[in-house]
């Protein structure tokens, strides 16, 4: 961890007319961390990134990089480099000139910037194409050029705006690995904006989930995935079933909640909850088992099987429970095929009480979950 590339965002807002694109955001990104900002389009993640890069000025609040206030510092002088979504390579310059561009505008001599650019191109394995122009390259190669161009100034922070979205699936996975490797080699802060949940989970040290201009949760990927803060985070990050109930009784150590069909759920203590309050909670899809509909038990939900998908390592069974969202169970392959189900069957999904996770946050929007 180096403090040079630590980022502090304090009470930052950005208004476009009456629209609050970013609404009083507080966030600390440790130096040398890989941070992924995730959320649906229009959630403010790109605006936040652009404010860090200096392409937008916050309407209020301060941004510090390495402890230095850069809120109004000029782009290109604040130690950040931005890699654009469609790479934005200069079409009239060859790869060497593209990579050397920022050295050129800083007045580095021709020979020196050429050598540095070639060194950087070698690093991204493109030295053999140094004299080509961008339009002669494939998407993956263009992206590596964009990376080389961004890194040549030795930035403290590399900002990536949906860097993998223009690539096909195969390249995306390959580049994901390369990005991670590069980040640990360089030891600088990477901030990566994405709308793809597996990308964030796989890459990040810190996942920042945003919605409507505010941060819903900023934590490690395991924390975000296992202990989502709000129903929105649970839905958006995927892998969770979100349930709602009314508090039935509050006892020491646990709270009993009655869901829409009258089933009782044993939850841990909910701070300040009184009988009658509404509580959201979630249960991971892979912690659920199916049994026949007849037995009534606590921590379960009844439903009709509407879809079964074999996924190789697990079986995904979707239930219609009469709520607006389906209840999904990821079942162990061996266990499932010992007692296979059919679409239309009435079943009961049940789980151990310890897997009930309380969702404290109030953001109940649907999000767009990206699975698998």
């Amino acid at each position, binding site marked *: 961890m180096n403090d040079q590339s630590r980022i502090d965002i304090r009470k930052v807002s950005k208004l476009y007319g009456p629209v609050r694109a970013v609404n009083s955001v507080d966030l600390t990104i440790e130096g040398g961390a890989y941070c992924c900002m995730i959320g649906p389009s229009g959630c403010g993640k790109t605006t936040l990134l652009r404010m860090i*890069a*200096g*392409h937008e000025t916050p309407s209020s609040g301060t941004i510090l990089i390495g402890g230095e206030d850069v809120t109004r510092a000029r*782009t*290109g*002088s604040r130690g*950040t*480099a*931005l890699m*654009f*979504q*469609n790479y*934005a*390579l*200069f*079409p*009239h310059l060859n790869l060497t000139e593209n990579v050397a*561009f*920022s050295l*050129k*505008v*800083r007045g580095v001599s021709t020979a020196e910037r050429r050598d540095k650019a070639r060194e950087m191109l070698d690093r991204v394995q493109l030295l053999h194409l140094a004299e080509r122009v961008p*339009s002669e390259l494939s998407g993956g190669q263009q992206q590596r050029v964009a990376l080389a*161009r961004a890194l040549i*100034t030795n930035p403290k922070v590399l900002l990536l705006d949906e860097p993998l979205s223009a690539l096909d699936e195969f390249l995306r996975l390959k580049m994901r690995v390369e990005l991670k490797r590069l980040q640990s080699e360089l030891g600088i802060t990477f901030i990566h904006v994405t709308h793809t949940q597996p990308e964030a989970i796989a890459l990040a040290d810190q996942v920042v989930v945003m919605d409507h201009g505010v941060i819903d949760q900023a934590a490690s990927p395991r924390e975000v995935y296992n202990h989502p803060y709000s129903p929105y985070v649970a839905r958006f990050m995927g892998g969770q079933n979100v349930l709602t109930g009314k508090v039935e009784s509050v006892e020491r150590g646990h709270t009993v909640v009655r869901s829409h069909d009258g089933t009782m759920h044993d939850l841990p203590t909910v701070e300040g909850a009184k009988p009658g309050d509404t509580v959201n909670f979630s249960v991971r899809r892979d912690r659920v088992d199916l049994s026949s509909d007849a037995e009534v038990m606590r921590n379960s939900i009844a439903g009709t099987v509407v879809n079964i998908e074999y996924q190789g390592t697990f079986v995904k069974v979707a239930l219609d429970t009469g709520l607006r969202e389906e209840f999904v169970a990821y079942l162990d392959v061996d266990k499932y095929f010992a007692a296979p189900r059919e679409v239309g069957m009435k079943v009961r999904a049940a789980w151990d009480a310890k897997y009930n996770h309380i969702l404290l946050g109030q953001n109940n929007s649907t999000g767009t979950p990206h699975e698998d």
Partner: protein
Amino acid sequence: MSGRSSPSGRPLAPYLQVAPLAFIMLTMVGIPLVTVVMLSFWEFDGIAVYPAFTWANYAEVLSSPVTLTLFLATLKYAFLTLLATTLIGFTCSYFLVFHVRNLKVQIGLFLLCTIPFWTSNVIRMVSWIPFLGREGLFNSMLIKAGLIEQPLDILLYSDFAVVLTYIHLFTLFMIVPIFNSMAKINPNLIEAARDAGATPAQILWNVIIPLSKTGIALGSIFVVTLVMGDFFVVRVMSGGQSASVVSAMKNNIDQLYYPVASAMAVLLVTVVLLMVTAILRVVDIRAELAR
């Protein structure tokens, strides 16, 4: 492109497709040009023209010191006009593309540029006369403002008036292509340059101008050919004091010196072709347009 073959194996469709354009080019450009070239080799005895093959007309044109003067004068007009229209055209396009964010305003302002074209060239040109004349608006304004005592003679019937009229008439031919190539510049490129630490001047020089040069080249071709081919503006706005290549040609034609005029025309076409070739050397328009 692959043309679909007719059953006999000879593709006919592509030829039919180019036929209308080929016909127009042949009748409107090819035949007149060949006629002019042919005429330039015919004999002329001061009264009538005889079919022949003689270099005499060229010898006359090339040996006359007036020819060089005429070409230099015309090239001077072309150069000054090109310089001014490029500067104005680039500035206007830059403003329209990069400062006017709203597309509707952009289109509106662009149409505003074309308003002068709603009237004829002649009217636009002649309308300068009451403005620039000795007793004209501009002179009386300067006198009333106490800036000058005597009216300025240089304003009208001068090279200044000729070039000013050219600029007025032809700037739009520069704005349109430059605007077109500038509008195609991905705004991300400018942000990327700014992100790399480039100052606005560096962005202009390293990104915007190189990416607009197709438009500048196209506009230059328009302006150069228009100025080189003009005689009317020179005649009216210089008050007969200056001449261009074409106005001299016009004099020859008025005196029925057709072969000499033709030889001059062939010479002019050659010079203009050389200039256009030079422009195309600097900018590979085909490659840029395909980009």
